[in-house]
């Protein structure tokens, strides 16, 4: 226990003894984590937007004239089983006539004395998957079903929205990975610098019989603390930005609101501690070879 307290104390002392390099590193960690937080918030909000847009995707499937309402009901159930489909609502011929009347103000039975409208179904697709939805295979599957006459959907619009979302998702992920690697490198270099400055301590420790892990631990604690402080500052700044953003938007409209993950601060802290640890381990492993 005394040994552990000594090592933790050394980690804190390192932080204090090398204020300038530590502050530089913390600022870098703060900035990169803040950027990651912003990217995460953009990703999270665009995910919610895509879920909303997908809920508006509608595929209308019209069955052949000769298909009875009972058969149409069965075909609707069959369509619902296709992967990527969330729900399929059956519209029988009578319902179709009712909808016609609602939309055009005329009763088709009075006009034609018969109901020419076919049974149909309205298909909603799954909306929560993170990758882009490819509508073409779903349409192909529906077309294979015997009794399907015509399918209408906003194909071009859906594929455009999905393509943009996919591009945004990939870009955000790529940028976040690059930023994380840069942060690890920054922490690693700061620890290396501290390590070089502390060459006398490392030498003294080796001479008195300290193991490599004993020498490493204070530097790793130093890295973790840098990450932790950077994460706390980044979380505060991020919550502040979201709050200010919502305040600004509220002045213009109350229909849009930036939503924030309550645990984003916690996630940033976990990420920061991990990158602090990885950065410091990387630096010390190279120097203590």
């Amino acid at each position: 226990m005394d040994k552990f307290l000594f090592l933790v104390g050394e980690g804190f002392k390192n932080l204090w003894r090398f204020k300038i390099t530590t502050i530089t590193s913390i600022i870098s960690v703060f900035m990169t984590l803040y950027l990651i937080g912003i990217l995460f918030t953009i990703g999270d909000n665009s995910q919610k937007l895509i879920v909303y847009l997908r809920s508006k995707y509608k595929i209308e499937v019209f069955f052949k004239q000769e298909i009875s309402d009972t058969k149409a009901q069965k075909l609707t159930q069959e369509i619902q089983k296709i992967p990527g489909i969330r729900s399929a609502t059956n519209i029988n011929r009578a319902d179709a006539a009712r909808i016609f009347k609602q939309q055009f103000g005329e009763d088709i039975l009075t006009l034609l004395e018969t109901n020419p409208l076919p049974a149909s179904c309205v298909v909603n697709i799954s909306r929560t998957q993170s990758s882009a939805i490819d509508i073409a295979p779903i349409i192909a599957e529906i077309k294979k079903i015997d009794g399907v006459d015509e399918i209408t959907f906003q194909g071009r619009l859906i594929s455009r929205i999905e393509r943009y979302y996919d591009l945004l998702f990939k870009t955000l992920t790529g940028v976040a990975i690059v930023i994380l690697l840069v942060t690890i490198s920054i922490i690693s270099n700061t620890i290396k610098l501290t390590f070089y400055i502390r060459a006398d301590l490392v030498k003294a420790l080796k001479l008195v019989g300290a193991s490599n892990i004993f020498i490493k631990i204070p530097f790793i604690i130093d890295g973790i603390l840098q990450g932790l402080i950077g994460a706390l500052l980044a979380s505060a700044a991020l919550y502040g930005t979201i709050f200010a953003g919502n305040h600004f938007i509220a002045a213009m409209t109350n229909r849009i609101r930036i939503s924030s993950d309550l645990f984003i601060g916690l996630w940033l802290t976990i990420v920061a501690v991990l990158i602090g640890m990885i950065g410091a381990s990387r630096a010390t492993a190279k120097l203590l070879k």
Partner: protein
Amino acid sequence: MIALENVSFSYKKWVGVTDVNLVVKRDEFTYIIGPTGSGKTTLMRLIYMDLFPDNGRVLINGYDTSRIKNRHIPRLRQNIGMIFQEYHLLSDRNLFANVALPLHVMGIKRNEIKETVAEILNEVGLYGKESHYPNELSGGEQQRACIARALVKRPEIILADEPTGNLDPITAYDLMELLDTINGEGTAVFMASHNYTLIRDRGHRIIQIQEGKLRA
């Protein structure tokens, strides 16, 4: 306790030591003398396993350079006290923290560390200077601090590499007396020096080294 068997070591561009055979017994005080660059420091580094021989082997307290694993070297060093011409004290820590360092490494409890450090500082004549920083101590005091740091873990062997090199004759003499006392308490001392006049009348074993080879 210390045995070197046909030990040779070469640096990239010059020879360190050649075919060295040497045994240092428990409680023995051994001087190794020779001019600068003769191989004294190389010998020391081979003994505390900072270097490994190209040929032959070094045996220290049962540890063998030909078989030892890297993770066992720290344990070997915990049983060896090292003193250098350049004191290697940490300038940002006071005397107490410098001397206590090996005990922290060994995982000794805080209360015990306090007692042991006070005891050892008393032994080397630095009691009362615990809160002084290295730059507030004289050269002789710094070397005593270095000895205190080497002794605090009660090692079986003290390796001293030119410990009097930076000291005036009187302080150097006092230091030799201190090392004699330590040896009298049962610690083997292996000391490198190029100052023959300082050691010749002390009645201890003297080994000469020249161009990496031991001379009778």
